[in-house]
């Protein structure tokens, strides 16, 4: 069966996560994606773990592989005129070009949208940075997803009220933003199909992150309420609803039994400890929240998260272990869904990467492959896409253009 975007060409010169993850979405849909990179200044993600067997190495980063799965590697130094020319020629025949350097750097490299779109008016180009290109602070502003989360308002909302904010796990905007980029590119492709028109898409990762927090933004804009961090799971309108300790080191389960039928189910399973008639009504449970939570925590503390989850789900109570990574790999539901894909890589060997984020029943995603080693398809790309002969490729290699 043909994949959704088979035949389309993507050039991905992005690095770290946001640009390359966005390009992975397109790659999974069948686009032929070239990851252009130079060994003189490799993608910094290669230096960030986790690494295969915990051993660092440029080709050993698992984050790199999951971000770049299925792409083909082109080693090219765009600081040389010949290298720049190669990228320009590839982009001239590409459908989509993704870059995520410090905003504005791409113009200085001689790869501005204005220039590239002259040769290829249908080109859809993505530029993404923490604060985007437009606006006085955008150009020249570099950062990571930590910076992006701070500007998005996310960092301030995560942590304990009695302590400094700690922010969400890791560079959070890196996880949020690719969906907004992928949607924007796909919409632009639809328009191009009708009109032939391309476009330049400027996405600020902080603004994308903010889209996941708009209820808090509207609370300020309408009510003047500045949302603050609440620490652990806490919803003043729901009880019981929280994270409860379980047997094991740092193990927890989330139980949300605010709904009447869920509460009935919870009571049946837990029994005597929750039988107090003071807990019969939601208002009663809201007022006795601390006591209900204490009793529930006593009950969960002697059981594993999975035991609690299964016992409660059987009784129709929304509950789930706060999964750790080992559970994520043995999770029967993810296994059933075929979420993890085994890939083989010359350096990393056989390992597991997450597959596509959703399933297409009519035009399946292409099989998941490992990310490319630096420049692993350089000669094939130059010959196949640009018609270069062996001699020319050898000459460029000797000149250091292809490293």
């Amino acid at each position: 069966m043909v994949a959704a975007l088979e035949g389309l060409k993507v050039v991905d010169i992005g690095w770290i996560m946001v640009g390359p993850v966005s390009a992975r979405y397109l790659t999974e849909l069948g686009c032929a994606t070239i990851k252009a990179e130079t060994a003189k200044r490799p993608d910094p993600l290669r230096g960030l773990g986790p690494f295969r067997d915990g051993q660092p190495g440029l080709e050993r980063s698992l984050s790199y592989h999951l971000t770049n799965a299925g792409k083909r590697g082109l080693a090219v130094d765009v600081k040389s005129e010949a290298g720049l020319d190669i990228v320009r020629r590839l982009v001239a025949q590409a459908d989509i070009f993704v870059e995520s350097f410090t905003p504005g750097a791409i113009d200085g490299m001689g790869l501005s949208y204005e220039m590239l779109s002259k040769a290829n008016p249908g080109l859809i180009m993505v530029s993404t940075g923490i604060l985007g290109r437009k606006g006085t602070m955008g150009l020249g502003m570099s950062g990571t997803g930590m910076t992006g989360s701070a500007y998005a308002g996310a960092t301030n909302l995560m942590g304990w009220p009695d302590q400094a904010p700690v922010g969400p796990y890791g560079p959070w905007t890196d996880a949020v933003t690719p969906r907004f980029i992928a949607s924007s590119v796909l919409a632009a492709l639809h328009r191009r199909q009708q009109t032939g028109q391309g476009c330049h898409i400027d996405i600020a990762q902080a603004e994308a992150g903010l889209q996941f927090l708009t209820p808090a933004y509207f609370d300020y804009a309408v009510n003047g309420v500045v949302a603050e961090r609440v620490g652990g799971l806490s919803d003043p309108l729901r009880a019981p609803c929280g994270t409860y300790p379980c047997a094991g080191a740092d193990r927890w389960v989330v139980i949300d039994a605010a709904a009447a039928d869920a509460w009935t189910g919870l009571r049946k399973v837990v029994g005597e400890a929750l039988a107090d008639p003071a807990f019969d009504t939601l208002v009663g449970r809201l007022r006795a929240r601390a006591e209900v939570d204490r009793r529930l925590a006593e009950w969960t503390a002697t059981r594993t998260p999975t035991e609690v989850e299964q016992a409660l789900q059987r009784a129709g109570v929304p509950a789930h272990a706060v999964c750790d990574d080992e559970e994520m790999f043995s999770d029967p539901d993810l296994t059933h869904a075929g979420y993890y894909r085994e890939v083989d890589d010359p350096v990393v060997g056989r390992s597991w990467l997450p597959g596509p984020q959703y399933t297409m029943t009519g035009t399946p995603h292409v099989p998941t492959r490992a990310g490319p080693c630096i420049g692993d398809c350089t000669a094939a790309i130059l010959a196949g896409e640009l018609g270069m002969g062996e001699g020319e490729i050898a000459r460029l290699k000797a000149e250091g253009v292809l490293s």
Partner: protein
Amino acid sequence: MLADIRVLELSTPPTMLAGQILGDLGAEVIAIEPPQGSAGRRLAPFIDGRPGLERSLTWHALNRNKRGITLDARTPDGRALLAELIEQADIVIEAVEGEESLCGLARPERLIVCDVTAFSRSGPKAAYRATDPVLVAAGASPAMAGPPGRPPIFFPVPQAIMEAGAEAAVAALAALGARDRLGCGQRVDVQARIATMPATLGRLVSARSGGPHGRRMEPPRMGAMPAIPGIYECRDGHAVVTVAFAPAFVGLTQRIAEWLVEEGFLEAEVAALDFMATARAVMAGEAPATPIERFIAALTTGCKARTKAEITEASKRHRFMAAPVMTMADVAAFEHYRERGLFAPQAVGDRTVEAPARFAQFSNYEIAVRRPAPGLSEHTLEVLTQRAGLSPTEVQALFAQGIL
């Protein structure tokens, strides 16, 4: 960009952001609710803290650029109307429990159906009941967030509905891409639990590949290397400052030191050290950690004496990475977002707010707030007379029976 695309959203919390993204990108979106209103209308916070079906700010935040109608799909009339609307639609977005799509109605060949389930459609957790925090927990990111020794931390804003909605927008548009090329519609499936998993940022993959586990823990100590904080208290809140000694980032750290020297917080001889070499020696246990400790202490003191804005300004001048830890009040006031045109006016109840609507800036398209979030059944008459060929009297008759 999607001006020719008609979307039906059978409104539930996880469909809301999906419908809105498609609407922002130009599609004509109709949100269909049961007569008593979508569950999304009952999500806090509320206008002035007063609950009401028209007062949910989560609803207002996630339903711009949609028209809203009500119908009871369990009645024969409701089903017939839904079938009529589906006939004219390009994309249907719905949340389903179990196997059944589109309330069991027939699917035209060109139709794209985007189904959002909590877990897998037919796997061992297919019958699991899930609410937002349950799905976030199942996605594993809380196991890695927050300081050890206390419970995992959560956003005070539901996240699974956002993750699933954003993923569903991608899935629906991917299917549109397929239809544009191949002519056929299809069903695409989004699992909200899987949608929450990117928030672990790849940490998950290491468990099976011999890497370190992704858990909440004190950062591993390398030799005598002190813990390096990422967030610093300042005069008016907190700032994120990226301090790292890896080759790709050590230059930034060196430039932080230059700033601290300029401001009189750090001795020039510490800043003059080669930080990468120093850090390596400290990690290897070959040198004392004193200079690194001195640097962190100076950064802590320096930040405390400066405002978020001053630190941000310094980071620009000295080219290191720092950012103000913004509150929502800071976000609303941030001049840069205004210059970019992030905000667009949107009516919310009887007032107008600046909504951060433009998640992307296109060279030849502008996301606009064409309409605010719909009131309950606001467009029922308009849509059913235009699209389903009903007369106004027929619409009234259905309303009188509680079908609309």
